[in-house]
Each structure stands twice: as C-alpha cells, then as structure tokens.
C-alpha cells in the first residue's frame, strides 16, 4: 500500500517536473530579499499597483472617463479653492474627471508597454540567437542592420511613419516594437557568443543534440536573468515613448484616455488650470520611476555574480564591524 502511494506521489512530482516547487521556493526567497531592499520593494509595489488599477479600473474609477458635463468644466482639485470632493483631482476642459481618466489611462500604458516588450523582445532575442549561434554571414547581416538602426534615434522615424499611417494603439505598438528590438538582439548575441564556448554546450553538440535543442535548452536559460532585467528597463522606456508620441498627437487618439494625451490636451490650459498637466504627468513619472527601481533591483538580484559580490561585501563589512 505505502509503496503504491509513494510511487503515485513520485509520478505526480515527475509530471510537474519538480518545477512549481522550485519556482515557489525561488519566489519566496526573492520576496524575502525584496523586503530587505525597500527601494526595490517600492518598485514592485508600483508595478503590482499599476496592474491592479488597470484590471479594476471600472470598479475604482468614480466617474466615466469619457463622459463629462460641461457644467463641471475645469474644476480644480478637491483641496484647492473652488474644488469639490466629487472630483478629487479636478476636471478637464470637457468636465471629465481627471482621476478616472488617469485610472483608465493605466490600461493603455500597460497594453502598449507589455505588447511592445513582448514583440520586440521575442523578435530581438530570436535575431540575437541566430546571429550568435550561426555566426558567419547571418551574424554580419543581422548585426549590420542592428548597428544601422541603433545609430539613428527612433523618434524622428516614428514620427514619419505615424504621420503616414493612421495613429492608433496598434500602430503605436508596431512602431515602438520596430524601434526597440535591437537592444535584445545585441545582448542575446553577446551572451550566446560567450556561452557557446562552454564545455557543456560542446558536450550537447557531441552527444548529437540538434541545433534547435542546443540553442533552446542549453543556451537560452543563460539569458533568463539579463533578458528579464532588460525587458523591465525597456518597459520603462516604452512608457515614456508612448507618452511622448501621444503628447505630440501621433499616438493614442481622443477620446481614449492616455496619460501623454491628457498632458497634451491640458497644455492649452496651462495658464489657467495647472492640474490638467500636473497629475497625468505625475502618473507617468511615478510609474516610470517605480519600473526603473524594480529593474535596478532585478539587475543585482537576478545576476549570480552580482549576488556573490554583494554577499562578499556584506560578510566583510560584518567582519570589520565585529573587530571594532
């Protein structure tokens, strides 16, 4: 009886490959570490908060983000003179609630940021894997494209493209992804080149693994931590880029609520209604700050070498303190 049970339990474990347990443990130790690093914790809280706000937008928003009453036009924030508690952060030129629009704006921010990182990350990583592993002509063609594209800042080209095609969420995502894949390709290629010479990769090849298996099973896992950090960092950059495009009128179009668009519409009332540009801009800045802080924590926490350095520094510090 007992052996049967044990076999069944082992089968269950094998079915899951032991991975959920490992992942849970890794997650817990990461959370423990985050608790010790308050700056990184702040970053994580911002990101988690952002996702929650985006998902719960209909519940959280006190008003309809696109419908306003002209009677409530340009109300200042609640604490300012003439403000009312109904509109916590005031209203815009069409009488729409700023807070509700900011809350709904998180959806666009997340959608654009997430899609661009996913698209550009996937394509860039694949290009980097091919360039690094195949080498030769593949490498020189891909890297020449990367170099040429990196040498020219994307904003102006993005403007040209968006001036010709109709600006929309989809076209913004496409343009930003087109502009952002090169960093992933460069980094992936670098890691692949250094890992390719490792004995275990040679061993895998000698054993007879197909190139695809070598690349995906033996080389790709090395990229997990640098790619994760880069993706988070790029996420922050994309949020800023989307906001800038929307601000210039070439990104998200009205009546949709996007933070950059809100600032753009508010700038016409800069002299009379400061809250129109202040709050959406603050939302962008806080979000990007949080994502950046998370990225800088990840950079150290997800890199074994950095962890070692940090551990050594902590022990030596403890040792010197002990002697004093």
């Amino acid at each position, binding site marked *: 009886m007992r052996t049967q049970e044990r076999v069944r339990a082992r089968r269950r474990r094998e079915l899951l490959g032991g991975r959920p347990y490992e992942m849970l443990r890794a997650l817990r130790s990461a959370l423990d570490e985050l608790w010790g690093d308050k700056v990184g914790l702040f970053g994580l809280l911002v990101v988690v908060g952002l996702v929650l706000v985006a998902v719960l937008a209909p519940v959280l928003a006190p008003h309809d983000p696109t419908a306003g009453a002209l009677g409530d036009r340009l109300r200042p924030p609640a604490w300012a003179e003439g403000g009312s508690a109904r509109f916590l952060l005031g209203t815009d030129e069409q009488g729409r609630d700023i807070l509700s629009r900011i809350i709904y704006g998180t959806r666009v921010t997340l959608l654009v940021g997430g899609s661009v990182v996913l698209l550009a990350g996937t394509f860039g990583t694949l290009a980097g894997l091919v360039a690094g592993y195949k080498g030769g002509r593949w490498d020189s063609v891909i890297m020449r494209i990367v170099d040429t594209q990196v040498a*020219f800042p994307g904003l*102006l080209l993005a403007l040209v493209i968006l001036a010709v*095609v109709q600006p929309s969420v989809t076209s913004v995502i496409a343009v930003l992804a087109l502009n952002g894949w090169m960093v992933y390709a460069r980094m992936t290629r670098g890691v692949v080149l250094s890992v390719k010479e490792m004995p275990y990769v040679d061993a895998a090849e000698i054993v007879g693994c197909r190139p695809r298996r070598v690349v995906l099973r033996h080389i790709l896992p090395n990229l997990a931590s640098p790619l994760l950090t880069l993706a988070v960092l790029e996420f922050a950059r994309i949020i800023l880029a989307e906001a800038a495009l929307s601000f210039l009128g070439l990104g998200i179009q009205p009546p949709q609520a996007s933070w950059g668009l809100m600032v753009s519409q508010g700038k016409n009332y800069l002299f009379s209604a400061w809250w129109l540009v202040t709050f959406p801009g603050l939302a962008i800045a806080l979000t990007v700050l949080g994502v950046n802080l998370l990225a800088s924590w990840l950079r150290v926490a997800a890199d074994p070498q950095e962890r070692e350095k940090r551990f050594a520094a902590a022990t030596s510090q403890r040792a010197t303190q002990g002697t004093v």
Partner: protein
Amino acid sequence: MGRFAARRIAQGLLVVLGVTIVVFVVTRLVGDPVDVLLPLEATAEQRAEFEHRLGFDRPIPVQFVDYLEDLARLDFGESFWQHRPVMEIVLEHLPRTFTLVIPAMLLMVVLAVPLGVLAALRPGGFLDRVTVVLSLIGLSIPQFWLGLLLILVFAVELKLLPPLGGGSPKHMVLPVLTLALPAVGRLAMIVRSSMIEELNQQYVKMALAKGIPYARVVGVHALRNAAIPALTLSGWEFIRALAGYSVIVEFVFQWPGVGFLAMQSIERQDLFLLQGIVFVVAVMVVVVNVIVDILYKAIDPRIKLA
C-alpha cells in the same frame, strides 16, 4: 587615421541611406502620398493629374532611382506648404535648433562631470545622493512634462521668463534647461560609476604613493580614463537631443527650430518637407558620430583607429 575616418564615414553613409530608404518605403508603399497630400473631396481626375505631375504614377523602382538621384543633388523638391525649396527651409531652421542643443550639451557637461566626480569621491555622501536622485529624475520624468512644469513655475507663477516662442536669449533659458536637466542626471551617473571604478585601480594607489597630489591624481589620472564611457554617452546624448528630444522640447516651447518644423510639416501633411528634415538630421547624426569617434583617439592613445 585617414583610413579609419573613411570607413566611419562610409558606415555613416549607410545609416543615411538606410534612413532615406525607410522614409521612401514608408511614404510610397505603406501610405499613399496622394491621399496624404490631396484633400479627401478631390475628384479622380484631379488625383490622376496630381499623381502624374509628381511622378507617382510611374513604377516604384523608377521612382526610387529618381528619388536617389534627387538626393544626390540634395534636391528635395518644393514644400507644399511654403512653396519654397525644402532645403532652403530646413537650412534656415537648423541653426535655431543648434542654438538650443549646443548650450544644453555644454551645460550638461559642465554640471554633470564635476557632480559625478565629487559624488565618486565620497560614495554615499550628500553629493552622491544628489547625483543618484538626479539620475533617477533623468530616467523617469517625461521631458515634455518637465518643460511644462518649468513654464508653470517660471513663467506662469513667478513671471520671470517668457513661456513660449523664440528670439531673445531669455526665450532660450527654459528650453535649454529642459533639454539639459535629464541629460545631466544620466551623464553624472556614468561619470560617477566609472570614476569609482578607476579610483579603485592600482595605478591610482601607485600615483598617490609616489606623492602626486590627490587633486591631480583624481583630476588627471583617473578622470582621463573615466572620460571614455562619459564621452560615449555624451555623444549619444547629443545625437538624441538633435534627432529626438529637440522635437519634443521645441514643440513644447514652440521654438522655431527643425523639430518644431517637423511637427508643423506633419500637421500640414507636407511630405517632401518631412523627408528633407529627416535626411538633414540623419546627416547631422552621422557627423556627430564621426566626431565622437575621432575624439576617442585624442583621449585614449591606446585606441587604435583601424
């Protein structure tokens, strides 16, 4: 040296060529230029006449060769909006963009290098914290918002400076600050981290042991080595200010430079003008890149320009 410069310039031409091809493809293939240029209510005859006049009815390869020929002669045609040669308009606006970008970049170097060095001397000290906070601001604040905040504070509230427009030196202050401040944070951070690294090197201890004054060791020995990554970033900041940030900053302050011109040409659907702007900016970017590469050699004789 000569060979190196030639190769870099050839690479640069490749960038310019790539940019112009992308612009060609985007304007001719992705969108229909006639759609963009003519009003919606134009009749089929008007469209055909217009297409014929501009040569858009010919096969794409023929158009492309024609386009390249025009490029070689630096002929971008006439602006639909201003009815003047595109080149003339762009070259008229270019100096105004430089009057923003160059002071902003000088300000960036003047502020960021001392800040970064002083921060590196005492990691964890007051100036170090200032640097870290500034660099986070540089990474996180949307530039257009920073510009608007500066207008709110200095023009609307304090009434010290004019909010918009160009012309007098007073008009320059806010746009230059908007361009420079985020860059100061990013550059100071790079100077700081590379200085910290250099100050831990053996040659610094050696120089100090020989009795060379501390200030000289920091300011000459270490700084010169730390200058290489700083130069890379400065060049990149210059390029991005020229070809990206200036569009945003000039748009916010309605400063009549190339960036604002680009936004206006988009608004007025002036495709030829936009093409001309992108080409000129691409050439500027390449020039800056080559200058930075040659400066490397001046700073670090170990770099072989081959």
